[in-house]
């Protein structure tokens, strides 16, 4: 299976535009460390900006690893980043939550973070977990608390987006404890850490420093700026893609200059402004088209990609969010995506929703099934089977070929969707959104997460206490 949004000539044209942006416009940064790193390796100062040379770009792109592995606390959770398996990742940092009981939107709490993470842990086709944004914890140590809460409520791999390097030491400490030491974490990273510079092409102090620290810590980095077409990027999809590619490559290059071979992902998030309202859209089709375009560029560079995809503008788990999430994820996955983020989100990635996460688990299942494609071989083409069935005036139900491939999983089994007769369905007449909500409640009530050892739990408490002391003066 092969899906190309652009021809090779078009792809080259976009790449050349990106190179031109890096050469002519470059980036701006307020981190002296970041600046020095770039300048030491051949980048040049031009006014208040740092521009890249073709040599630097070419050299840095050569050392990016085409693949790496991401692990969970549990050994069975191994993700092969770089193999284009479209792993599904929950949405990061939503400040709001759809209440599971009332269905009303409200602020996210740490209890939500616990339950939402546990739900994600229970869902087969949600592969990476990122924290929602609880409002009832001290903001000075929020990432520390989020990381501890994630590790306590899932054994799956994590993605922890850092806006600055300030809390990184505590995060690393927690990860070391959960992984069994610093060396163990290096050998088997259990988290990827994205940083988000500003668009257009602005590496502010915090993200720039965080980027360097993440690379030095040896954890897989995500470079995740978030331009908005028409306001912080040009009003053409392809123009925004070219700029976005340039700002991501700037981070990729910095990572490679600091530590050649450092694992990372291009975590594209090209969004759009609704020009009637000013709303920032993470909607269909632009989000999926831009994500797909960025994925094709990632393939061109042989760099793993991790766009947002399970997202849309709908405010509730309804048909619109169903088709929006499917659209964005499918377009990205068909081109080739390692990770697809934003699962469980509503309202342009501002709200998380338990029911939507259960629906996205279903969509992730079908997306992952799709990209496996179909195998074409003689046994599967089954010409002899057709001949036999027709010669015997029978049907295929009774043929052993049918039983063989039925058991081999030729039919997809939906984790959520209804496939019954109308009459059976009509007994409960349940909409899929309501069924998703019911399943979410059941899983939260029953799902058991692989626990941390009591010793690790105790150490976690100490790390949090120390963070509280140092960062909050308590």
């Amino acid at each position, binding site marked *: 299976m092969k899906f190309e949004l652009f021809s090779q000539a078009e792809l080259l044209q976009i790449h050349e535009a990106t190179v031109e942006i890096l050469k002519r416009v470059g980036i701006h940064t307020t981190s002296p460390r970041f600046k020095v790193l770039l300048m030491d390796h051949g980048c040049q100062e031009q006014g208040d900006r740092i521009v890249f040379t073709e040599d630097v770009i070419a050299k840095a792109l050569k050392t990016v690893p085409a693949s790496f592995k991401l692990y969970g606390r549990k050994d069975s959770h191994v993700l092969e980043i770089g193999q284009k398996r479209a792993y599904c990742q929950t949405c990061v940092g939503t400040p709001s939550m759809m209440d599971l009981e009332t269905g009303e939107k409200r602020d996210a709490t740490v209890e939500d973070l616990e339950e939402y993470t546990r739900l994600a842990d229970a869902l087969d086709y949600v592969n990476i977990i990122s924290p929602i944004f609880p409002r009832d914890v001290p903001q000075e140590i929020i990432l520390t608390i989020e990381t501890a809460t994630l590790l306590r409520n899932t054994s799956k791999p994590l993605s922890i987006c850092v806006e600055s390097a300030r809390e990184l030491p505590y995060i690393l400490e927690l990860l070391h404890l959960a992984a069994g030491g610093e060396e163990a974490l290096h050998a088997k990273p259990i988290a990827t850490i994205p940083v988000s510079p500003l668009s257009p092409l602005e590496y502010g102090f915090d993200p720039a420093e965080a980027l360097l620290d993440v690379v030095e810590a040896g954890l897989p980095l995500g470079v995740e700026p978030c331009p908005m077409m028409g306001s912080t990027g040009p009003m053409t999809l392809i123009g925004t893609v070219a700029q976005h590619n340039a700002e991501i490559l700037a981070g990729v290059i910095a990572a490679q200059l600091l530590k050649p071979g450092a694992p990372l992902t291009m975590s594209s998030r090209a969004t759009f402004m609704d020009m009637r309202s000013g709303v920032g859209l993470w909607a269909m089709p632009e989000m999926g088209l831009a994500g797909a375009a960025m994925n094709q560029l990632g393939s061109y560079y042989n760099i793993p990609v991790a766009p947002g995809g399970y997202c849309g503008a709908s405010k509730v788990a309804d048909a619109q969010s169903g088709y929006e999430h499917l659209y964005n994820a499918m377009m990205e996955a068909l081109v080739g995506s390692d990770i697809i983020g934003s699962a469980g989100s509503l309202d342009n990635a501002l709200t998380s929703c338990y029911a939507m996460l259960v629906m996205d688990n279903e969509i992730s299942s079908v997306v992952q099934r799709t990209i496996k494609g179909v195998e074409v071989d003689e046994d599967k083409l089954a010409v002899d089977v057709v001949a036999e069935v027709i010669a015997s005036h029978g*049907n295929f*139900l*009774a*043929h052993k070929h*049918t*039983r063989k491939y*039925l058991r081999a999983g030729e039919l997809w089994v939906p984790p959520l969707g209804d496939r019954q*007769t*109308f*009459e059976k369905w009509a007994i409960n007449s349940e909409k899929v959104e309501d069924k998703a909500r019911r399943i979410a409640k059941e899983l939260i009530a029953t799902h058991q997460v692989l626990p941390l050892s009591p010793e690790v739990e105790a150490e976690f408490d100490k790390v949090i206490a120390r963070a509280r002391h140092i960062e909050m003066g308590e």
Partner: protein
Amino acid sequence: MSNFNELAESVISGNFGRVKEITQEMINKGVEPLQIINDGLIAGMNVVGVRFKAEDMFVPEVMMSAKAMAGGMELVKPLIAETEMPSVGTVVLGTVKGDLHDIGKSLVAMILESGGFKVINLGTDIAPEGFIKAIREHKPQIVGMSALLTTTMLNMKATIELLKEEGLRDQVKVIIGGAPVSQSFAEEIGADGYGSDAMVAKDLCIKLVGKAS
């Protein structure tokens, strides 16, 4: 006793050869034919019915079980008189005139047979007269009609009308099925029931036979 279990298990796993083997062994040992049927073959098929209803078994597997059971029945049948054959009832089945679709009806036939019904499967493209002839010949309690095409489903009504004209309507229960058919359509044309899937059709037949007898 363990032999009956093994026979039932072989029916459940759809092992045609093994079912025939065990049945023949039992016959050779002089086991009561009716016991072979009730405690072995039908016992196994009853489990299949339960599992299928619970969606634990797939259609092709049920089909294999039915085939295996039929293999055993074939050996036992000559040993008992027709009147002694355990039967829940007789059903005449056919796809209506103008329609060549066969699969749904065949499924129903299989499920009914495995539920102990005697099934006369007329095949496809059966004109109203064909149903009348079969009813006169086989004296079923139930006639089942199937259609997949919206343009042929009206031929179900034509068959019911002819049943009335021929004075046979009171002697049989009429059930219908097929993707475009519905409960309201069954009521509209004066059928006695509608089976939305094969298992529902079997339950419906059991209910109607209870009423009919």
